[in-house]
């Protein structure tokens, strides 16, 4: 029974479609091969995990590099919106702004990405530095979000609508409740997301690229602040953005050359 559970856990590395088509058959072979010893079972389970990750990687590569970069921009928009909402909730700005941002984020999470992107652009004009008489440095920090929003309008992610994704609003609200000053906590949240992106890097570089786009924005935002307040964040953001971009460029480049496992 335990052996079967180990096998089933290893099978989780495969995409759901493969699990559905061949999961039981693969589990059968794993149990056959792992009958000799515990070591054989561990070796077979490890091979299954690697096989599953390669399968996922191959599935991701089939989308093509342009689609992957567009998806990364769309994911960056969702992260931007999450951080913006946390920031709005913590700095207790206008209630209407919080409601509008929550609505836009909800649309993006469910899968109405084009509507969310248009809403995001409108919100930037209404509440962001675009709507005020801002200096150039203030405008520079919205360049990346605007670029990502435009990509999202033109090429939203191809995914089914899923209201369950609204559950992501819970950690956003919980985080906003835990931190009384948003600016202090945002890099930590982004660092957690970036760690997730790095863990997925072997089979899917999109989250890592999305995080690097958000880090770049934080870098631009910090650059506009007077030292020493922005200096620590500037350093962290610069290192993180550079590191993530460099690391995620590798798998993306390899996906161009090796589209089959």
């Amino acid at each position, binding site marked *: 029974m335990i052996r079967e559970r180990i096998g089933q856990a290893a099978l989780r590395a495969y995409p759901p479609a493969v699990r559905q088509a*061949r999961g*039981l*058959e*693969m*589990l*059968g*072979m*794993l*149990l*056959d*091969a792992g009958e000799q010893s515990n070591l054989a079972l561990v*070796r*077979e389970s490890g*091979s*299954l*995990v*690697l*096989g*599953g990750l*390669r*399968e996922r990687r191959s599935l991701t590569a089939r989308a093509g590099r342009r689609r992957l970069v567009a998806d990364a921009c769309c994911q960056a928009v969702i992260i931007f919106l999450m951080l913006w909402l946390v920031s709005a909730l913590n700095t207790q700005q206008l209630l209407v702004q919080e409601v509008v941002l929550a609505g836009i984020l909800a649309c993006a999470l469910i899968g109405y990405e084009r509507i969310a992107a248009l809403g995001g652009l409108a919100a930037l004009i209404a509440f962001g530095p675009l709507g005020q008489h801002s200096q150039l440095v203030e405008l520079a920090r919205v360049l990346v979000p605007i670029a990502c929003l435009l990509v999202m309008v033109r090429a939203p992610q191809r995914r089914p609508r899923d209201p369950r994704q609204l559950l992501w609003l819970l950690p956003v609200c919980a985080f906003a409740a835990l931190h009384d000053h948003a600016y202090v906590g945002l890099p930590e949240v982004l660092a957690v997301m970036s760690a997730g992106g790095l863990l997925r890097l072997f089979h899917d570089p999109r989250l890592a690229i999305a995080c690097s786009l958000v880090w770049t924005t934080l870098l631009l935002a910090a650059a506009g602040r007077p030292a020493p307040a922005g200096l620590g964040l500037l350093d962290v953001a610069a290192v993180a953005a550079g590191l993530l971009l460099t690391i995620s460029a590798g798998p993306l480049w390899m996906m161009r050359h090796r589209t*089959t*496992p």
Partner: protein
Amino acid sequence: MELRPPSYFALAALIDGPLHGYAIARRARELSGGRVRLSTGTLYALLERALSESLVIAGEPYLQGGRQRRDYTLTPAGRALLADEAARLEHAAKAVSGRLRATSDAVLT
């Protein structure tokens, strides 16, 4: 198209008739003299590729000893590819061993 040893022996395992996954791994190990050990992840990646290139066909799943199995059969295209690869390896082996014999004779004399 050249086949790597795991693919070559996995396809060769099916020459005598259809086999299920674990039986393919065992047969490939026998045929290769223990040099090729196909793990579950590797074998199914190979089978998936062979299926997409129509080198093998998959049968219907069935239960045996409480475990789900599915037999795989070599197609004529798979057999032809295997024959080409065997001929290529034979030619390469002959060329090299011929040269080795010739030079070892020369060294001895």
